[in-house]
């Protein structure tokens, strides 16, 4: 029997999708149990499997015997507005999830890069936070628990559905940003906020150095923006760099911060965006990172932001960059090659700054790896965890590169 015939026998014809351009058989299991069944079989049969979501973020080009997409895991079993929690399957598109939460007055305070229909599982497994990380923290801070399936088909629960939980070891944080190397996330328990009653975005254009100073002034003035993002001209589609400030929360808080913003920026040079303009601005920013072939993030301390931006400009060019200087996070997208990325990672490692490759065509990410330049002792731990959760190496993930 071929792989396709075996998969059809396991899950039925309805689960089999048309193969992509690389002709790898593609299957869409309709339940977490079906994912476990498939991966258990893959482990026994020695198949190499790549995991896909909606196919809008990471390129669907990893060499594999079988592609499993989570797109049929798109249910939202629970939304609890009074508890500010929700449970959603990994294949739900963020746009659908956002809408259903908004209908109940709830908000998942993340704005990851990528298209609106990117799946929740993709965002969690790659830990790709967007500008809202400034006010609401990284992706892991929005997770209460996950259920995942290991490379040999075991279903594992971690965490729970409540606000605080220290029962057992935190395997949720292993999965958040694990890039699927330690299992396939099938269900996510989320921490929500109430939909902000006031939400306004201000932008200021100028030279990068000037805007950096304004950003520091805003932080020093005690404002509490939801996002404080420095965006390169090409990405913002403006003539100069843009500093975007998003204020979101209770009307009292936003109104007080608006007053403070004028004072912190030396006389109110910031321009407010109308609601539809703000929506378009942040959406364009997010989508920009899924257009170019390579996207990566780096994380340094806030005082190193300027130096790191200079370094990126020097080594790769700074066409498409978005930075949250106060959070020390910078995301770059563009076109580059293996040598340049490896050299950059080495340089950054010397500055104690990790580089995480978020997306790239397989030849590049296979060579460079999502992770690399580990600090002392990390490599053996990562390898041990990888063998623990995928003992047969069924999951094709460019963990450290070749």
């Amino acid at each position: 029997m071929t792989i396709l015939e075996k998969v059809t026998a396991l899950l039925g014809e309805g689960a089999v999708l048309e193969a992509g351009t690389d002709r790898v058989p593609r299957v869409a299991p309709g339940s977490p149990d079906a994912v476990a069944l498939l991966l258990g079989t893959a482990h026994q049969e020695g198949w190499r499997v790549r995991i896909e979501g909606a196919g809008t973020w990471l390129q669907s080009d990893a060499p594999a015997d079988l592609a499993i997409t989570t797109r049929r895991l798109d249910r939202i079993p629970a939304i609890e507005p009074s508890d500010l929690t929700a449970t959603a399957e990994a294949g739900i598109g963020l746009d659908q999830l956002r809408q259903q939460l908004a209908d109940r007055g709830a908000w998942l305070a993340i704005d990851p890069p990528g298209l609106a229909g990117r799946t929740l599982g993709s965002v969690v497994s790659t830990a790709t936070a967007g500008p809202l990380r400034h006010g609401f923290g990284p992706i892991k801070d929005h997770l209460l628990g996950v259920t995942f399936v290991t490379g040999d088909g075991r279903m594992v629960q971690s965490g729970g559905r409540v606000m605080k939980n220290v029962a057992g070891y935190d395997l949720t944080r292993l999965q958040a940003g694990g890039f699927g190397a330690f299992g396939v996330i099938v269900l996510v328990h989320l921490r929500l906020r109430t939909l902000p009653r006031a939400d306004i975005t201000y932008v200021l254009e100028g030279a990068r150095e000037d805007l950096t100073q304004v950003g520091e002034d805003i932080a020093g003035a005690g404002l509490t923006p939801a996002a404080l993002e420095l965006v390169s001209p090409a990405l913002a589609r403006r003539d100069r760099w843009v500093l975007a400030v998003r204020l979101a929360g209770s009307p009292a808080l936003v109104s007080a911060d608006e007053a403070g913003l004028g004072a912190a920026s030396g006389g109110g040079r910031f321009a407010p965006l109308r609601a539809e303009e703000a929506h378009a601005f942040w959406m364009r920013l997010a989508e920009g990172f899924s257009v170019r072939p390579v996207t990566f993030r780096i994380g340094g301390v806030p005082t190193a932001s300027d130096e790191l931006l200079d370094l990126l400009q020097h080594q790769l060019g700074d066409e498409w960059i978005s930075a949250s200087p106060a959070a020390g996070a910078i995301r770059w997208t563009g076109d580059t090659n293996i040598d340049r990325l490896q050299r950059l990672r080495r340089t950054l490692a010397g500055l104690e700054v990790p580089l995480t490759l978020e997306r790239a065509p397989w030849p590049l990410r296979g060579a460079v790896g999502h992770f690399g330049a580990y600090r002392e002792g990390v490599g053996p731990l990562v390898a041990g965890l990888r063998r623990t959760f995928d003992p047969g190496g069924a999951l094709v993930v460019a963990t450290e590169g070749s």
Partner: protein
Amino acid sequence: MTTALARDLAAIVGDRHVREARAERLTYSMDGLPTHRRLPDLVVLPGSREELIAVVRLLAALGVPFVPRGAGTGLSGGALADEGAVLLVLTRLNRVLKMDPANRLAVVEPGVVNAKLGAAARPTGLQYAPDPSSQSACTIGGNVAENAGGPHCLKYGVTANHILALEVLLADGSLVEIGSPGGEPWGPDLVGVFVGSEGNFGIATRITVRLTPLPRAVRTLLADFTGLRVAGEAVSAIIAAGIVPAALEMMDQSCINAVEDSVYAAGYPRDAAAVLLVEIDGRNPDAVIAETEVVSDLLRKSGARSVRSAASEAERERLWQGRKKAFGAMGRLSRDLVVQDAVVPRSALPQVLEKIASIAQHYGLVVSNVFHAGDGNLHPNISFDATNLDLKKKVEAASAEIMQACIAAGGTITGEHGVGIDKMRYMPLIFDAESLGAMQAVRRVFDPEERVNPGKVVPVHACREWTHARGYRVGSPGAAPRGEAA
């Protein structure tokens, strides 16, 4: 020194810092929970990172298990060492190594006391936000091991949200650097995995913590209610309004009276069924004032009999002292106190509190509630006399029923105290055998021989077998849990 091991350890840390005498070891036979007692074979207090590394490498060479311990304020029996294990007390590693206000971080040794880190940060306009009630004694290393919380974690997050990087000493004596000062991990989030691992993965020898700006304005409200259910509903109303208070704490009448009878008397109304302590803080005074007005209105509309705002810093401190010293005040009620810890969905608070009251009534026990209502993190405290064995059995039975009630409401068995020894029996109630096996397999990646803090957190007998990468098998017949010695 009477044994070869004690002599070898003394050669590293000095005679004074190896405790062999039974009377000395008894000091370390308990933590903050009175229901578990274990006597370590030896107690060692290294005075530096280098001494600690040398001690762990010696123990690794000899295959001796060990248990790291901070100030011993834990509430799950997690830092108790069995016979045959060496207790490593880390309180002498108490230096703040670096304070970097520009990048809002500090690097500390594990024995630094939580409140002392806060005091060191304060002159720079920053704070270390996690504030467990034991913060005047507990250590950052212990906080990392337990993923400690505290009243102000509602807004600022728990310990896991404040740890950027760690240097970890593994059981085999090797050092690992995980995380980075900017918070981005080198690969998977091993810092996130390590925090809350209850000393099972190794010892954090250097801890890089995130500091946050001190609030510029703080308002503290005390609201009192004639019923627990109404107070619970007021909590939901505040959260639903989209305002995140810095803290939202509840105390019931039994707790109120214990506090008011003690030196920590805070002026709580004794006839109230419950009080809510609500703190709103922020960097913008205008916003804090406006949000305080909204919260005050919500409390009144939700049925608060009165809402009082602390008029001065002294009054605020008094209100908080009553809350933070409530556990101490409850010491007046009886010889012993079991501090329980569970979390339920916020909306389930009213019915779970009623269920706890009925369990207490059924067993004829005094249960006082003081807890983090905003997080749904309950602390039912049972007052009893542990020398009365019948009463002790009743306390254990009531504790189990309380846990089951919280689980039935969609909750979990611990929100901040950890599993340790005390909660191991409840782990199979919330995790299946596969998930427990996965946890144990992860532990073996860090500590293949299970020599660091053995016999804690995961009930090995309940794990499904996982074949580990290095060839070890979890859940084998020889890996039964150690017996209770309480």
